[in-house]
């Protein structure tokens, strides 16, 4: 057995997941693999004790109902959920950030006052487009993630139906999320 073959199986050998006479014999002859084996063996004994803190039973008792709530919510939004692929279209160099549309009409002040807004009124098929030139410092990927975050958190198309709900958007949190959290 070659050293490389032995090494690729050494962790399994050290953890007892495999037994192999060929590896045993190789380790008796090859000092560098033996040293490697001893080091790995001592490491895996430490790693073997690792366990993360389990969530509480309360968490597990509620897990299924949380999943189902989200499924129901998404199903209710199914009509507008279909808009999501449009967010991903690579041709969309302008990122769609629907909440800004609402902000502008709701009177909430926002620092990026130069934002150029293009609104497409056929929201059911195309969403609300906001060309955010002032976000150019962020990568497209970052903004795309922001869009997903906004979509999930605020269910934007629904909010558009009841525009006054935009008042509840925590602008600072959203902006901070866009700039820092991804």
């Amino acid at each position, binding site marked *: 057995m070659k050293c490389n073959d032995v090494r690729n199986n050494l962790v399994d050998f050290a953890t007892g997941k495999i037994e192999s006479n060929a590896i045993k014999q190789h380790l008796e002859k090859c000092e560098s693999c033996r040293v490697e084996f001893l080091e790995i063996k001592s490491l*895996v004994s*430490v790693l073997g004790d*690792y366990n*993360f803190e389990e969530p509480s039973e309360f968490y597990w008792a509620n897990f*299924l109902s949380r999943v189902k709530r989200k499924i129901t919510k998404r199903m209710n939004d199914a009509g507008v959920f279909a808009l999501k692929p449009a967010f991903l279209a690579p041709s969309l160099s302008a990122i769609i950030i629907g909440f800004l549309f609402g902000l502008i009409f709701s009177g909430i002040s926002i620092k990026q006052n130069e934002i150029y807004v293009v609104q497409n009124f056929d929201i059911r098929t195309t969403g609300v487009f906001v060309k955010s030139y002032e976000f150019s410092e962020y990568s497209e*990927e970052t903004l795309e993630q922001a869009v997903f975050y906004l979509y999930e958190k605020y269910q934007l198309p629904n909010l558009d139906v009841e525009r006054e709900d935009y008042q509840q958007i925590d602008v600072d949190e959203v902006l901070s999320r866009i700039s820092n959290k991804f």
Partner: protein
Amino acid sequence: MLNKSDIDLVNEFKNGNISAFDEIVRRYQRKVYGLARKILGNHEDADDVAQEVFIKLYYSLGDFKGQSSLFTWIYRITVNECNNVLRKKKIREFVQIDEIANLLKFSQTPEQEFLDKERKNLIEKAIEKLPPKQRMIFVMRFFEDLDYEEISKILNKPVGTLKANYFHAIKKIQKFIKDEMQ
């Protein structure tokens, strides 16, 4: 319901019995969370991923053809979701020097609780340092005890590559811990 096989549950779900989905969630929720928790290193992300996995499962279960086991399928969704989280997140500098200094300072304390916590933190940081692919292979092989064939189906990688990655992952963890202890 408890004694039914995975495939029976899937078929029942396909035939309109939604409670079969509930049982699938109950059956796999801890495994999915545990895998995500070990890959991602924190509860919040693992919780998000676990929820999302079952939402995706709900929508895609109708397409499940049974070509792989349900277990493999669910793990594949989990790994993909973890990958998405890792991709979206900035590559964080996981370990601050001060943090490690504090960690090691406390290592002299006689209380076992402290020692366990320190060791756990160090291991988590070492795992977080691994590149995503190696991290997933390591967690699935070392902690989840999956065999290479199963991991190969989940990640769509040849067994040889998995073994080499597993070995390199252990070496990196070893190096990280050594460096921090010096």
